[in-house]
């Protein structure tokens, strides 16, 4: 059993409510933080080595230290709860079942950053989740944990939820800020970074839900202790939302020292693949990260065991590795077709492109069209090279990373499963009749 810091109390009945949350030690972390100076709180977060849990993995303490502090200008903390990366549903889980963990983390973080008004930008579809968080905010306010002079510390803070309305792009922090200002979610050109010019032109920090929740245990056990959990620069614990062809889909907290194989096959986590099927491929960090075939997923190209942490998952770069990303862990069994699955992802990125940059706006549409041809028995061998060419021209040529996110899954699918693409051309009739691809990429069944 790995160390749990975020979900250790998740099974306590009524933990969603303030009374139970406090009885279980909730808001003690806030008390401790308020007894320190804001810069001391920041120092603890720096020491913890906490990395952004939304997908990019940027060190949180460092991000906070970039926040500009001009006199007389308000600073803002914005929580990114626009969870929309396919495969990812961990933030929803936290907000739905233990909302006070996020609120407590946000008050502490607001204190460290000097934000007196903080916002939680929640994806619009999480309507009932917003109600749960709103209720928790009301309860916290009533208990003097929000509002003026919190716990007699002299610190004032209000937190408000703000629902989006269905746009994956608003998970990108500058698009999120545009959306929070009541505009279309078009990413801004950086610099200036939000830390200097963010919400309404004021210095702003945008952090993911899980990142802000992790600040709570960091203040309790201290940054140094937190940094001892995990391995290397993958400190602390990480939530993984596991889905696809596994026996036990759900949200798991791991301490980043377990192997990918254990995560997939152990009963404590995914519980293996249903119906005795074999593992074919996996997208371990949300749909944007490269897909890996079973052999490269369980072991690195050098033959070493691959672990569930930032460094190990990216071992081998994009040639033979992938990324930790958001922790959206999508498993594909031997019956799944890579072309069909990647078509679905390309359609997603085409739908979600904001349309601002032509390589992404046009390129994602082309990717979807060419994929559709291949999957529907109308493809040619040169279409595979065309797909490669299109993704290469999108990557790195757009304002925000949505272009890269659309390109990477395509590049990885062709890199690792080229003969399955070719099979769609040489077996046009057959691929129309069946929905699955080639099974020979799958691993032998574990003994």
């Amino acid at each position, binding site marked *: 059993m790995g160390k749990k810091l975020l979900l250790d109390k998740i099974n306590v009945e009524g933990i969603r409510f303030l009374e139970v949350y406090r009885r279980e030690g909730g808001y003690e972390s806030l008390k401790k933080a308020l007894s320190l100076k804001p810069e001391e709180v920041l120092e603890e977060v720096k020491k913890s080595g906490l990395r952004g849990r939304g997908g990019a993995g940027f060190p949180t303490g460092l991000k906070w230290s970039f926040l500009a502090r001009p006199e007389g200008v308000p600073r803002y903390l914005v929580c990114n709860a626009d969870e929309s990366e396919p495969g990812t549903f961990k933030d929803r889980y936290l907000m739905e079942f233990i909302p006070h963990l996020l609120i407590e983390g946000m008050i502490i973080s607001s204190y460290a950053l000097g934000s007196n008004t903080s916002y939680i930008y929640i994806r*619009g579809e999480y309507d009932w989740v917003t109600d749960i968080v709103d209720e928790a905010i009301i309860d916290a306010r009533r208990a003097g944990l929000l509002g003026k002079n919190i716990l007699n510390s002299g610190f004032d803070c209000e937190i408000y939820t703000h629902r989006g309305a269905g746009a994956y792009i608003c998970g990108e922090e500058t698009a999120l800020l545009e959306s929070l200002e009541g505009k279309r979610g078009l990413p801004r050109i950086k610099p200036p970074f939000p830390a200097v010019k963010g919400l*309404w032109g004021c210095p702003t920090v945008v952090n993911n839900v899980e990142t802000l929740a992790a600040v709570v245990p960091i203040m309790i056990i201290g940054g140094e202790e937190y940094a001892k959990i995990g391995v290397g620069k993958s400190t602390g614990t990480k939530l993984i939302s596991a889905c696809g062809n596994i026996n036990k889909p759900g949200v798991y907290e791991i301490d980043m020292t377990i192997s990918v194989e254990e995560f997939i096959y152990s009963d404590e986590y995914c519980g293996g693949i249903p119906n005795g099927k074999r593992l074919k491929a996996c997208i371990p960090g949300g749909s944007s990260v490269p897909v890996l075939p079973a052999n490269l997923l369980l072991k690195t190209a050098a033959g070493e065991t691959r672990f569930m942490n930032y460094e190990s998952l990216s071992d081998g770069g994009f040639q033979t590795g992938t990324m930790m990303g958001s922790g959206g862990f999508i498993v594909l069994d031997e019956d799944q077709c890579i072309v069909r699955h990647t078509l*679905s992802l390309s359609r997603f990125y085409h739908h979600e492109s904001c349309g601002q940059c032509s390589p992404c706006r046009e390129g994602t549409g082309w990717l979807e069209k060419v994929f559709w041809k291949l999957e529907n028995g109308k493809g040619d061998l040169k279409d595979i090279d065309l797909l490669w060419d299109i993704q290469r021209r999108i990557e790195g040529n757009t304002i925000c990373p949505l272009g890269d996110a659309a390109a990477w899954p395509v590049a990885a699918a062709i890199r690792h499963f080229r003969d399955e693409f070719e099979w769609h051309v040489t077996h046009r009739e057959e691929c129309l009749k069946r929905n699955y691809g080639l099974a020979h990429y799958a691993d032998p069944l574990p003994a």
Partner: protein
Amino acid sequence: MHNMKEENLTAPVFSADQLEEVKMLVSRYPDGKQKSALIPVLHLAQKHFGGWLSVASMDYVASILNLKPIEVYEVATFYSMFNTKPVGKFVFEVCQTGPCMLNGSDDIISYIREKLNINPGETTPDGLFTLKAVECLGACGYAPMMQLGKTYQEHLTKEKVDRIIEDCIKMSSENN
């Protein structure tokens, strides 16, 4: 038939209670930044003005937030949750993205198509159901799934879809 188009020809207005809610939403942002309340207020308008946003509804929202109508139109058309055309009383938004697809969302969509005799994007002639195939809703571990109003309907099977449709019909006849 419930004629949504005609209903929206008359300019919609919020009730006193709804206007209080608008005021509360606007108060969440600094003075002069009331534009930030646009998306929350559009949600409110869609909820109370028949499940969609007519030009009249959007113009009304523009007037109460002191915005130009174009500022409202461009936002309403950008976000996929806002319907700028009438929809049925019950909107089935079935997720079709990768993880749901791996768990049979295509079969669920085909089943609903057959059962309601409409394609994605269409509404049944009685104005009761709209079917939409949508992208990832963040419920990948509980696939296949769809959004129905405020709630998520997860772990869908054909039997569960049957039950949901029956419940909707029942609910609708009870309300009439």
